[in-house]
């Protein structure tokens, strides 16, 4: 479904953020991208939809190669990749509904979007999505009136209304408290399952990643150093990804939390 071939990104400063990354994501797979800050997780995700231009290498979405596309064709392909951001990146002075509908911008013409005359089907879909994440009653609130968790749910709706085949998720929980973080991760994974979406989720919280995804990729200094199931992340592997640290406590703690959650439910 998504295939990265020898993807390289070198910034103007000379920093090599990605060193010939090769990843193959099959249809409907949710994978987590972990690694220390500065490992190139964010750059990798942005190179896929070309918010950051890769220096060399190829990105295949289905059968289409993205790095060589003209700007018009790139815009059409971007519609198939929904993106969810770390700081929500909602347009704060627009209403919740406008933020969700902005996900349809790739499909409607300029004047239609400027006058907010979206097709009825889009409006209905927007309300269904907002209802699905429990925010339909907030549709006409301004985005900056919402709490962090609510904003991220609006961000999810904006990505989903694009009707994407792939979700690019950049640190969805970095600015949220632990409980909301879990809710948001669970919501993203549920929605991916419901709609059969593939997703790449950047996340720095290893425990949270292990809890929800089928596959984990570890990135260190722009190179893939781990690719496998979440329970294959031994302390040795984590040391390879993050450097020396006492990992037993982290893994232990995660299991404890999990048990507590099971007990509570």
């Amino acid at each position, binding site marked *: 479904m998504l295939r990265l071939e020898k993807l390289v990104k070198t910034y103007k400063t000379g920093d090599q953020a990605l060193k010939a990354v090769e990843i193959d994501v099959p249809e409907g797979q949710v994978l987590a991208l972990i690694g220390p800050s500065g490992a190139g997780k964010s750059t990798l995700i942005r190179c896929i939809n070309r918010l950051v231009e890769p220096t060399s290498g190829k990105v295949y979405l289905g059968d289409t190669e993205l790095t060589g596309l003209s700007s018009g064709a790139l815009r059409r392909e971007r519609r198939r990749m929904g993106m969810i951001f770390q700081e929500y990146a909602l347009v704060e002075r627009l*209403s919740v*509904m*406008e933020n969700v509908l902005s996900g349809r911008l790739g499909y409607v013409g300029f004047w239609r979007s400027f006058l*907010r005359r*979206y097709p*009825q089907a889009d*409006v*209905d879909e*927007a*309300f*269904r999505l907002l*209802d699905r*994440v*429990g*925010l*339909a*009653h907030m*549709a*006409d609130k301004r985005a900056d009136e919402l709490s962090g968790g609510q904003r991220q749910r609006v961000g999810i709706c904006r990505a989903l209304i694009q009707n994407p085949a792939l979700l690019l998720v950049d640190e969805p929980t970095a600015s949220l408290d632990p409980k909301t973080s879990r*809710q948001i991760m669970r*919501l993203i994974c549920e929605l991916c399952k419901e709609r059969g979406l593939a997703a790449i989720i950047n996340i720095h919280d290893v425990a949270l990643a292990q809890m929800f995804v089928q596959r984990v990729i570890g990135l260190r200094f722009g190179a893939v150093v781990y690719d496998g199931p979440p329970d294959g992340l031994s302390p040795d592997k984590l040391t390879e990804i993050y450097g020396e640290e006492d990992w037993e406590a982290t893994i232990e703690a995660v299991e404890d939390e999990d048990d507590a959650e099971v007990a509570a439910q």
Partner: protein
Amino acid sequence: MSDIAFDISSRVGKPWKKPPFVKRAWLRWTLILGFIAYLIAAYMTIEVNWSRVYEGLERGKQFILAFTAPDFTSRSGDIYEGMVESIVMTVAASVVGIAISIPIALGAARNVAPLPVYLICRGIIAVSRALQEIIVAILLVAIFGFGPLAGFLTLSFATIGFLSKLLAEDIESMDKVQAEAIKASGARWTQWINYGVQPQVMPRLIGLSIYRIDINFRESAILGLVGAGGIGATLNTAFDRYEYDTAAAILLIIIVIVMALEYVSGIVRARVQ
């Protein structure tokens, strides 16, 4: 996960509209219609002599062309004298204006000055700000006669209103703790101002002063129109005689000096902050 029960089936299929900025419909329409009515009325009452404007286009073209070949030489004597006079007025008025502004700013800050002093100083600021430079210049020319003295006094007076107000606001919003620490050491009022207040407002004073020098120079270019000295008189003559190339030369000099002043003020402000 739903926070509040919401009947989605009743909502689907209905059109959605962006909620309007002004919620009350009658108020919204009154504002829109009132504004349109005003625009129409304003447009109707402006008498435009279109044939005169059309004739003017040719002169406008000449003027724009004059910028490509400005004439600095044929009236270089007048331009030089006018420019020197403008700069002299700017420098002298800025020095005097800033020097007077400082005590008035202290007087106009409620946390430094007692109430009667405060009211007097605020009154001076209000009068200075309400009267525009050109009107003050007209009155001062009537009183002191033609020449740069009237322009110098005008600019000094305007500087006081501008600088004292902004500086007083800065003094009022300064850090109380620092100032109190100096007071606690048993300092006299003048020492307190020198050690507790001055260091805190100094960067702002320098920044504002340089900004005001910039404004004073721009204003000095028009004071000549009413006989208060400076380059304005030369410029006015050039326009009257349709000497666009000379006018273009003067305008270019003004623009370059203003740009240079802005550049310098940018550097100085970055330094002191």
